[in-house]
């Protein structure tokens, strides 16, 4: 299979190279380069399209805002378009190589030109990448928002190929991948838990976000370390020309962002803060335990940009977000915990320092240093059983990126070094005279090194190839004590024969290999293209969890002697077609993916504070396949998209006879929802008013139903046999949003806007889960009926209102 695929690629390459030699026939061409920037703020616009209609050539500004094109001598009317901006035409006379800074004006809701994405109008057919969706924050702000909070993660759930275990679950699943298989980057810093309030909101402050790119397949070689997807979130530029304040007041959280120049045109910053006051909402609950509950979060995002010279820039991004839950003791009465209250918290602290240097028009480099720390705690604050149970993961990296830009060829190459330090958990007694013993699991250390090159070549007018290669190497290092097992079988702690001690820095295990990333685009005509991609990705850290959706406190684990790295291979094929002058976009993709060493927990496994987690997990293979179809309308009074996804992910856990799940027979993963449909619609009523609806349907997630029940020790117990063989009912929901934009013509400095949202407009009582209870009254219960219940978390429509202001 793989071999024949390679042959196919090589022969296609040949074909294309020949083809391209024919197309290189124009004699005198000149290199035109420059930037596309916002006229007012001078903010660099990434992914703007620059069209030379006279020669039917279009380029787009790259990741650092530059464009570069070779055109023959002549007069051109250069068209520039970018989502949220007025289309502009620049008359240009080309007689020599020249630089043009193209300034375009931000649009204030022009009726006919409301766009859904930042993408170039024909980007979906002209770009070699597939499985990629870009959304900018302007689009997100028009989507109906849950409880008024514009949310990055909730928005991507509306895209094809993205699912979740359930509303309120942490993270998201892409094309059959687990939540730990998504590389979530915020200005290059990985975010290990993207959720506030468990999973109801995400940690990204919408005021600070500029745009997001989600790669479901065809991941370029500069990204690595995760097996399924990349969600790359870019924060807005800190290049304010004057002092400004923006903010918003919502029912869950309130926001404020301040931006200002420190030295004009040289040094600017922004600080965005967000805090919840949901305690106030708890007070209205009819349940006393809930009224005594406290739940809050905050986050602060900051960015500083220094323009050292025309060729050198320095950026710093800082983020800190924290969630705290405090629960009253009564709520824990069932849990045998002898405590008066419990605190549960988690926090992310990250920083990115990036240095950007332009050697010349076509060569630039980035050097970035990233540190990201995720910590989660469970705290019992009082009494002799007081404790603090903490765990975390620290990521430090250095990355060097080079960009070479030629008209028909763009090369990225570089290298990265990452150090992981995982604290799997320690139980610290905090009482003066503790009645519990401390448990301190050793930190896990690992180093990942990677080198990559990615070349995007236009092999001809209609053919583009992205050939990328990444090599990654991982080494788990001491200090550590690794359990040794009888017959090298780690299935049970009973088989432990001893522990092998490794000193600091000593190698415990190492892994590595090539990760080819190849994509090919063949344009059939101006409006249609076919794309093919293959990629291999290696993942050296993973979450091990025994719950349906991983907890914020779920344990991260590096690859070591018994836990092998996850390796995914994905091949996808797609057709992309635009109709009616790019007004309608159509895309259809199919994919097939295998994941080696995917991890799942054994029945009844407990992973908390476990010194040898290898006893409780099994690694096996995952097989995922599916089809994604999307139709999108990007301009006009009505905009929106419809997407349908068919997907399957089956896990086979059958390492050997002692290490199986579901008796070694393939079973669907917890988040396997084969059919899903999303409809997103937006109506621009006039310059200020916008109405939008969205509809979501998905098949119910898999669940294990009991087969029978039995009576033991005075209790009726449901008996479950095979994992995930049943399904909860299907899910559907309609949301509504009405936004009123500020009057841009108004002379007042204070500008305000409103957003009204209704989540679950039709009050649909969707099942969040089905669970089984057996009554246990103090009576003889042979004849007692066991009951099945449905839990719906959003039992009714949830309206919300948000007030936003700008000063």
């Amino acid at each position, binding site marked *: 299979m793989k071999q024949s695929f390679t042959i196919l690629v090589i022969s296609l390459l040949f074909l294309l190279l020949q083809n391209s030699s024919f197309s290189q026939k124009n004699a005198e061409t000149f290199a035109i380069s420059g930037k596309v920037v916002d006229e007012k703020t001078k903010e660099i616009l990434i992914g703007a399209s620059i069209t030379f209609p006279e020669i039917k050539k279009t380029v787009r500004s790259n990741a650092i805002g530059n464009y570069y094109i070779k055109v023959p001598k002549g007069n051109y009317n250069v068209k520039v378009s970018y989502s949220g901006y007025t289309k502009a035409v620049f008359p240009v006379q080309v007689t020599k190589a020249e630089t043009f800074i193209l300034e375009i004006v931000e649009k204030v809701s022009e009726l006919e030109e409301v766009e859904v994405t930042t993408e170039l109008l024909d980007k979906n057919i002209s770009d070699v990448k597939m499985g990629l969706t870009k959304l900018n924050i302007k689009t997100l702000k028009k989507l109906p928002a849950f409880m008024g909070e514009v949310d990055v993660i909730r928005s991507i759930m509306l895209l094809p190929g993205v699912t979740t275990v359930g509303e309120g679950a942490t993270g998201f699943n892409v094309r059959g991948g687990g939540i730990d298989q998504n590389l979530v980057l915020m200005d290059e810093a990985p975010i290990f838990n993207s959720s506030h309030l468990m999973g109801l909101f995400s940690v990204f402050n919408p005021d600070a976000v500029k745009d997001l790119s989600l790669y479901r397949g065809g991941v370029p070689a500069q990204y690595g370390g995760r097996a399924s997807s990349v969600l790359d979130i870019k924060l807005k530029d800190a290049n304010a020309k004057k002092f400004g304040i923006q903010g918003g007041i919502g029912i869950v959280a309130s926001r404020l962002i301040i931006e200002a120049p420190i030295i004009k045109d040289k040094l600017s910053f922004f600080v965005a803060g967000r805090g919840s006051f949901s305690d106030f909402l708890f007070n209205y609950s009819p349940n006393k335990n809930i009224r005594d509950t406290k739940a809050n979060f905050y986050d602060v995002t900051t960015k500083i940009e220094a323009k050292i010279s025309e060729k050198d820039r320095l950026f710093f991004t800082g983020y800190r977000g924290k969630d705290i839950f405090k629960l009253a003791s009564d709520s824990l009465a069932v849990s*045998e915990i002898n405590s008066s209250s419990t605190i549960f918290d988690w926090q992310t602290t990250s920083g990115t320092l990036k240095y950007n240097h332009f050697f010349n028009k076509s060569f630039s480099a980035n050097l970035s240093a990233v540190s990201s720390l995720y910590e989660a705690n469970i705290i019992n604050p009082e009494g002799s059983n007081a404790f603090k149970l903490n765990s975390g993961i620290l990521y430090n990296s250095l990355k060097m990126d080079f960009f070479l830009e030629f008209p028909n060829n763009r090369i990225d190459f570089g290298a990265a070094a990452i150090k992981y330090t995982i604290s799997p958990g320690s139980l610290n007694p905090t009482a003066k005279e503790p009645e*519990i013993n401390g448990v301190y699991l050793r930190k896990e250390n690992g180093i990942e090194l990677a080198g990559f090159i990615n070349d995007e070549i236009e092999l001809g007018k209609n053919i583009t190839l992205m050939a990328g290669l990444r090599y990654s190497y991982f080494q788990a290092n001491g200090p550590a004590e690794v359990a040794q097992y009888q017959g090298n079988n780690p299935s049970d702690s009973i088989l432990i024969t001893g522990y092998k001690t490794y000193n600091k820095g000593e190698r415990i295990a190492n892994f590595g290999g090539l990760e080819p990333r190849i994509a090919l685009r063949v344009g059939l005509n101006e409006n249609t293209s076919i794309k093919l991609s293959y990629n291999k990705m290696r993942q050296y850290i993973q979450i091990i969890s025994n719950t349906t959706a991983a907890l914020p406190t779920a344990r991260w684990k590096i690859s070591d002697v018994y836990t092998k790295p996850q390796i995914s291979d994905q091949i996808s094929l797609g057709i992309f077609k635009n109709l009616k002058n790019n007004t309608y976009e159509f895309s259809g993709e199919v994919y097939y993916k295998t994941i080696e060493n995917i991890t799942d927990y054994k029945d009844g496994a407990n992973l908390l504070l476990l010194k040898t987690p290898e006893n409780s997990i099994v690694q096996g293979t995952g097989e995922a396949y599916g089809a994604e179809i999307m139709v999108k309308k990007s301009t006009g009074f009505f905009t929106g998209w419809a997407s349908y996804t068919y997907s399957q992910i089956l896990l086979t856990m059958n390492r050997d006879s002692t290490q199986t799940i579901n008796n070694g027979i393939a079973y669907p993963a917890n988040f396997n929802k084969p059919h899903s449909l999303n409809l997103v619609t937006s109506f621009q009523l006039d310059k200020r008013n916008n109405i939008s609806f969205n509809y979501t349907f998905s098949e119910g997630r898999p669940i294990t*139903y009991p087969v029978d029940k039995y009576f033991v020790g005075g209790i009726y117990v449901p008996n479950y046999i095979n994992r995930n063989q049943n399904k909860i009912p299907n899910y559907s929901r309609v949301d509504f949003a009405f936004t009123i934009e500020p009057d841009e013509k108004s002379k007042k400095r204070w500008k305000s806007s409103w957003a009204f949202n209704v989540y679950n407009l039709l009050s649909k009582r969707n099942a*969040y889960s*089905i669970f089984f209870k057996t009554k246990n009254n103090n009576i003889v219960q042979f004849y007692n009926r066991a009951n099945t219940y449905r839990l719906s978390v959003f039992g009714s429509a*949830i309206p919300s209102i948000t007030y936003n202001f700008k000063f």
Partner: protein
Amino acid sequence: MNINILKKTVISITVIWLLGSCVDSFDAGLNTNIKKLVVDGEITNKPGPYRVTLQQSSPFGSKDFSPPPFNAIVIISDNLGNTETLTDLGFGVFETKATQGVIGRTYTLEVRIGDKKIYKSTPQIIKKPIPIDKIYTEYIPFKEGSNVYIGGEFHVFLDAIDPSTNGDYYRWNYTNFDQIDYCLKIRSNGDSGPIAIQYRCCETCWEVNPCLGCIYLGSDQYQNGKKINKQFIGKFPYNSILPVFLQIEQKSITKDNYFYWKEIDSQINNSGGIFDTPPANIQGNIYNITDPNDQVLGFFTASGVSTIPYRVIRRVEGIQPAILGVIDFRNQATCSPCVEGLYRTRNKPAGF
């Protein structure tokens, strides 16, 4: 200390609050009819007789009661070669006559059904019982605004000292003895709605309420050699000034038994949240020795038990007990006898 359940509870509650969620009944259409053997037996260091109950599992959604298997022979043997074939009391209940559990010995249960099916438990040891240090009560008043009746409840706690050996597992339980005045209650539908008439007891009568469905477990995993502090045993409403009589048991159980009950506890307390550990098959300690695919449910438990009688004094300075419900019509003239049985006794419980 059970941090897992803590986690689960914390999160379920939070998620459920946030969303104003609701739980309703659901028909999952479960209609399987596979009957499996269920064995529920126990041996302790306390004097017998010890009982073993055989049943069959029943379809999950049904009210049907699957009759016990017929033609069964139940044998308990120990590691010294002593065996006893239990007496069949009918309805799947088997009882020992001679066997006395001894601390430190291991016991095996064998069940033969017909000629072909032989089931055996793994050997279970009777561990040394660990003494109960102290039992005490705390009065917890209901806070204002709760939808429960006025008053409060008495929470009973236990303290003990975990020995310095690793791997001690506990299960706590109680039996509640209530002296009752009325031995018979007859309900009938009168013209103005249902009425109940209660008949007084002819003699002193005690109601025996085993704490069915109580699973209080402990492990010294994080507390080896320390004090087991304020272990919750049960709660009793302040609806009378009569004391509550309890027979409190602290069982030293095997590791297998601890994890068996821990999983059951986790599954029957599932709140339906996605942060719950999904339910899965719970393997007991009894196997079909010839056919590994024949699943057997239940557990044969051996444990060392410490027992303490305890009296919950229900008096709080300045607070009157809240009387629950409606007082039914009481017939003082006719009396009803106290019938000796599993849940009633004429004999004053030992220790009081």
